[in-house]
């Protein structure tokens, strides 16, 4: 056989798949088990949740980043197979990441918790997999739990997703049950990659990250052709050309290879220092023998929520920009542009897919780039229609034009899908009503589980809807949502004044009906969050020139350590240094020092105080 024939035979033995699941249904544990059974990782190197490589991921027990590993599997038919397992995030904020990884796959293992059943993200993920024409292998996981009810879950699956219950594999990733059935099913049911080895190179960049020594490292799926060490390559969207220094796969350890052929999933390095030239979703081809057209890329994202990010120390502005550029590499959904605030100075308006995304972004800025930033309260994008019918997009409440010029304001709505045990339907309806939702539909997916569809303003969903949903259903309800359009609303801008000065970074746009309530809660919240200072600080909430709520931050009266003798001085200095360190997280606005939490307090305004 020629080399080319060998490679084609090899291609027939490749299986590219990912695992999709609602959060906490056991996706990462199953991935660990698969890694273990294919001996990709010697037992002694196993640490829990191997594919979650960021500390942040392990700490929070969630997957954020995509990861791909190459595994060798000897099937019962005696043949050796190459598996590429691409991990996907489970949280609704990262649906986009899931869709990216699915585009690099030919099949998906759908994990459903045998005690929880179908959840909102189970559905969302299944639809994504179907959009990508993936073969789905249903796995009912955690069957060893006492409250597991696989029969009922399989029924739900047949009724709501339309998958054949006979195909479902009963498993417990934790106890190691059903793993070999899953591996055999991958061989049998996931098709081998269909690309043409003889065609010009087309490799999809489905993720990338930045390495301080080697530059940008794109993760690729070779769709057609073959790519070798030393090849001259071209990025089809940016026309940048590079020479490949190294390429290979993760097993999950990085392993260099001479080539990646059609169907392979791996990484490459090419001393790419210019971050701008690498776009996730772009196609890599050869510089000399170019593909005619790029692969279909990814749909462009619309961020759901925006906030201002400002360096605490103004001189860090340019390093903050560099950090954002680098973060963008591995977080293609991140969007940002410069903005200025009279309170906070120069910073960026950053768009996110949701609040978790925003939180993770901030933690990564802090941990990976050591950036000390202030984040303002998040806002959705409002569509403001001016009297002259001109339309302005406003994602920063402070920028809302003078109401005299405004004809009306529209806000984004989402179609929210909630799946819940039926006894909580009443609670959920009440919650949705309170959040200005409109009832759309209700379906029983089994005797005691219900799917509810509501149209709800995105701003209400984003703030604390999810927490509220969890608390009013004892954690049993799940939520998924997608943007459904813009609708006119009676919205006003609520200004917050500290020491009689409006602080633009604290302004918010709220529904008229909620203005008084939120204004007074904001005042009392700020009173508790802003540390006492030498003088009394009035806190006011105002609509236009009308003050609707107020409170006072009393002046600091006593802060002195009663005792300080011989041994106390070192301790005392440490205490003072710690207090000083705490101040670094504060931003001086005029004469008032405002801690980070104050900017975020708007998020929890509906909590009981």
């Amino acid at each position, binding site marked *: 056989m020629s080399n080319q024939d060998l490679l084609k035979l090899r291609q027939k033995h490749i299986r590219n798949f990912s695992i999709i699941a609602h959060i906490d249904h056991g996706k990462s544990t199953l991935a660990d088990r698969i890694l273990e059974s294919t001996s990709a990782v010697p037992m002694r190197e196993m640490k829990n949740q191997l594919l979650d490589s960021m500390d942040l991921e392990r700490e929070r027990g969630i997957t954020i980043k995509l990861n791909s590993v190459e595994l060798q599997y000897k099937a019962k038919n005696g043949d050796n197979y190459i598996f590429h397992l691409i991990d996907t995030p489970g949280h609704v904020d990262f649906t986009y990441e899931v869709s990216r990884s699915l585009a690099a796959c030919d099949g998906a293992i759908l994990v459903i918790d045998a005690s929880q059943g179908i959840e909102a993200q189970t559905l969302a993920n299944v639809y994504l997999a179907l959009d990508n024409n993936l073969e789905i292998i249903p796995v009912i996981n955690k069957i060893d739990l006492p409250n597991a009810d696989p029969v009922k879950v399989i029924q739900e699956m047949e009724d709501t997703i339309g998958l054949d219950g006979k195909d479902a594999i009963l498993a417990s990733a934790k106890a190691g049950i059903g793993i070999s059935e899953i591996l055999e099913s991958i061989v049998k049911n996931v098709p081998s990659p269909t690309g043409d080895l003889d065609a010009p190179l087309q490799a999809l960049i489905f993720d990338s990250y930045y390495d301080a020594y080697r530059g940008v490292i794109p993760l690729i799926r070779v769709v057609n052709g073959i790519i070798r060490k030393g090849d001259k390559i071209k990025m089809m969207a940016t026309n940048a050309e590079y020479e490949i220094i190294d390429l290979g796969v993760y097993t999950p350890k990085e392993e260099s290879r001479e080539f990646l052929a059609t169907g392979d999933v791996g990484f490459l390095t090419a001393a790419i220092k210019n971050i701008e030239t690498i776009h996730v979703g772009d196609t890599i081809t050869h510089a000399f023998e170019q593909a005619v057209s790029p692969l279909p890329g990814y749909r462009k994202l619309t961020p759901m929520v925006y906030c201002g990010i400002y360096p605490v120390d103004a001189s860090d502005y340019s390093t903050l920009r560099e950090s954002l550029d680098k973060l963008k590499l591995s977080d293609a959904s991140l969007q940002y542009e410069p903005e200025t605030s009279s309170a906070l100075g120069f910073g960026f308006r950053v768009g996110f897919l949701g609040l978790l995304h925003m939180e993770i972004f901030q933690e990564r800025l802090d941990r990976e780039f050591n950036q000390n930033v202030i984040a303002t309260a998040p806002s959705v994008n409002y569509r403001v229609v001016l009297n002259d019918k001109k339309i302005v997009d406003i994602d920063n409440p402070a920028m809302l034009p003078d109401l005299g010029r405004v004809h009306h304001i529209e806000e984004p709505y989402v179609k929210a899908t909630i799946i819940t045990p039926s006894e909580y339907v009443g609670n959920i309806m009440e919650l949705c009503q309170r959040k200005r939702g409109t009832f759309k539909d209700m379906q029983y997916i089994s005797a005691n589980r219900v799917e509810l569809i509501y149209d709800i303003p995105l701003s209400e969903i984003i703030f604390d809807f999810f927490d509220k949903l969890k608390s009013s259903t004892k954690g049993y309800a799940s939520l998924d949502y997608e943007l459904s359009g813009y609708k006119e609303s009676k919205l006003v801008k609520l200004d917050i004044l500290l020491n009689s000065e409006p602080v633009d970074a604290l302004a918010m746009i709220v529904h008229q009906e909620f203005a008084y309530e939120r204004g007074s809660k904001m005042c009392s919240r700020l009173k508790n969050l802003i540390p006492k200072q030498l003088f009394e600080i009035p806190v006011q909430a105002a609509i236009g020139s009308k003050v609707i709520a107020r409170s006072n931050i009393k002046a600091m009266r*006593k802060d002195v*350590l009663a005792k*300080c003798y*011989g041994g106390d001085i070192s301790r005392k200095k440490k205490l003072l240094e710690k207090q000083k360190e705490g101040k670094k997280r504060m931003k001086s606005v005029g004469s008032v020092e405002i801690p980070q939490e104050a900017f975020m307090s708007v998020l929890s305004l509906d909590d009981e105080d």
Partner: protein
Amino acid sequence: MIKSLYIHIPFCKQICTYCDFAKLVGNPSLMLEYTEALIKELDYYSQDLTNIETIHIGGGTPSALPIELLQKLLIKLSHLFNLKSLKEFGMEANPNDISEELVMLLKKYHVTRLSLGVESSNPLHLKAMNRSHTIHQVEEAVSLLHRHGFHNINLDFIYAWPQQTMEELKRDLRYALSLKPTHLSFYALILEPKTKLYHDYINHEVALIDEDTDASMYEYLLDELPKNGYNHYEISNFALKGYESKHNLAYWNLDEYLGIGMGAHSQVDTKRFHNSTHIKEYLLNVENNHCGIESYDACDLIQETFLMGLRKVEGVNLTAVSNRFLINPLMLYPKILKNIEDHLLVVENDYLKLTQKGMLLLNYVERSFI
């Protein structure tokens, strides 16, 4: 030149709920072993102790030491120093430990100053503090001391105790004055981790008093004590003229001092170090002549001159600082000026000192020096 010597007696008969000092409930053989270690440590340092002017025996509870062990220690001190010529020789005691025998012993060895932990005149608060004495015992102790011509007495009080009211503080103050001490320390409660009180606080069994009441109590003390002849000379300390604690002033003046005993701190030659806070380790170290080996911190003398000096009501002499360190303090710490503008600091006769408002906000002021 070391002019002050501190000796730590870590033993207590019972542990106060607020105390985080190096202390333990001792047994006779351990106390003997400890006293011998102190003596060995004194020998170890004897060459450095030729210029001692003040000695302070603190704790723990020095009076918890059996009288014959205390005597043993005093005899050793009398061999090392001319006790009679010391500028101050102080000791701490619990009021209920004051006996005729103890007073005679202290007089014999020229102890000049006795500091009694009175803490409160309210039996309920005393109980909550887990103090072992009664008010009656305080009165007896003071009158016994007075009968023996022992007049230089300090009384320690704690204020801002959970649930304490302004009225109770006034009662404490009247009570304190009625005992006619030469010196009064009023310490606002410091909630220290690793104390019973802290534990109760975390578990919401105890609430601290609010900042406003705490501030008003302090202001009341600052008003009332000087009216009664007690000169305010340090954040928490008040004395009749000439009775300021010389030993404590050594700390606030950053003079060199040596501390011996478990957990005792020293500052010698711009270095700060301390003994182990674990009794076994301390005893073993002394046994092996490894004294004062924990945490060798260099002092930032300029900074600490302000951090400690501002605790004194007279403040810090700016010319002296300039001459000693060849710097302009206002250039080195530009925030001093902001504090002066905010009426927290003031310069008077070349001394930088706290205003009354600054006295209440010393931590805030001190951050300007960090």
